């Protein structure tokens, strides 16, 4: 009688208890007289056990206190926040109120030990929206003359319709970076997504420093995008938003 052949996947599923009953009993039968088959199955059980006993004990390691504290704090804030939004009747308000937001250059967005985490947070943003971080080296193709012209003269808080149908430019604020350079934060609003950009004046042009594209539909991206922006602003020592008068004085072309 000829032996039935079982492939590796099937034997592995058998060893893992993932195989259907019918095939399992065929294997059990075959195991009685096929030593090689038994060894192959044992190989899969052993590898599973080896990995399990190497890695499972890691769960006994105490979670670092700083990480624990930080997650607890986030959790508590979220719980409080959830209650508030439910009361106010906007449980799914997914738009970060950029307009009303105050820049907080003096407040570090994360405790110092967490700063390496910034990279991961950036990755979080990258995973969902597009993420572009440049230091003036990579010009954003979307950053065209129309926008530059608007940044030259339009006051903050104004919506500027752009030539192409569904796009609107919303200039959020102006501020000066640590070196006194003029920077502006603005949003390009499209039907599906928003791009939030921080651009600074360099010579005769505006150079985008940070651009985050986030889908409009997702609940969670805008807040973490906001964190990224806050972290970035803190890193360039952004000052408080300029008042309308200060802004008018500093803009390259006055709107009159």
């Amino acid at each position, binding site marked *: 009688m000829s032996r039935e052949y079982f492939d590796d996947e099937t034997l592995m599923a058998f060893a*893992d208890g993932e195989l259907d009953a019918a095939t399992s009993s065929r294997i059990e039968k075959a195991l009685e007289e096929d030593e090689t088959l038994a060894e192959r199955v044992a190989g899969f059980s052993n*590898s599973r056990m080896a990995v399990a006993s*190497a890695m499972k004990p890691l769960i*006994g*390691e105490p979670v670092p206190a700083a990480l624990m504290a930080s997650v607890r704090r986030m959790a508590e804030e979220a719980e409080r926040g959830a209650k508030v939004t439910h009361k106010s009747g906007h449980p799914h308000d997914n738009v970060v109120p950029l307009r009303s937001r105050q820049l907080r250059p003096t407040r570090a967005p994360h405790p110092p030990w967490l700063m390496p*985490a910034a990279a991961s947070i950036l990755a979080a943003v990258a995973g969902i929206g597009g993420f572009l971080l440049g230091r003036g080296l990579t010009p954003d193709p979307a950053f065209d003359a129309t926008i530059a012209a608007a940044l030259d003269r339009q006051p903050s808080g104004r919506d500027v319709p752009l030539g192409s149908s569904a796009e609107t430019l919303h200039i959020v604020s102006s501020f000066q970076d640590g070196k006194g350079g003029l920077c502006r934060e603005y949003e390009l609003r499209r039907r599906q997504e928003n791009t939030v950009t921080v651009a600074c004046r360099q010579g005769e042009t505006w150079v985008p420093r940070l651009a985050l594209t986030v889908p409009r539909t997702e609940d969670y991206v805008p807040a973490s995008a906001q964190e990224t922006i806050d972290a970035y602003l803190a890193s360039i020592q952004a000052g408080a938003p300029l008042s309308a008068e200060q802004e008018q004085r500093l803009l390259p072309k006055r709107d009159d």
Partner: protein
Amino acid sequence: MSWQTGGMTNEASTVPQRLVAFLPNLRRFAISLCHSRELADDLVQAACERAILAADSFVPDTRFDAWMFRILRNLWIDHLRRVRTAGPQEDLDAARDVAIPSGETASHARMELLEVSVALQSLPHEQREVLVLVCVEELSYRDTAEVLSIPIGTVMSRLARARKNLSELTGISMGQKRSSDTKGGVA
């Protein structure tokens, strides 16, 4: 039937609360993936942040662990992509902080375990992640497929390959007895 809404407030089951309780698991998973405690903690932190913000997208009555693993794993993939395209591979060198369960005395058993954990890190990450999800976190093939967004058949073929590779690398798992009638397998 709406689980989430209405007056039903199940104190123990909100995403933020479950998250805190799940931290040791999540951290273990992160360490298994990236082999560095420092990086793992950053990943855990970022994953928690994202999970809290995305809490609404968690479907009650589905596996919370699978949902969290998926979030963390996606962050890890993003990280790998970034490292790959970002030139100098400092992160990879920093990642040599080997994942050894601490607090044990050197023993034969420990030597063997160390080998396994090193071998695990030398596998391609696609193989490592299925291995960890199934063998350490004990997810079913189906749940693993969900976490990784791949077909279950792919989970199985990767997992089988990963285990064969691991067995070869460690030499410990191919069964107690060696039969003489095999077709001259590579040592």
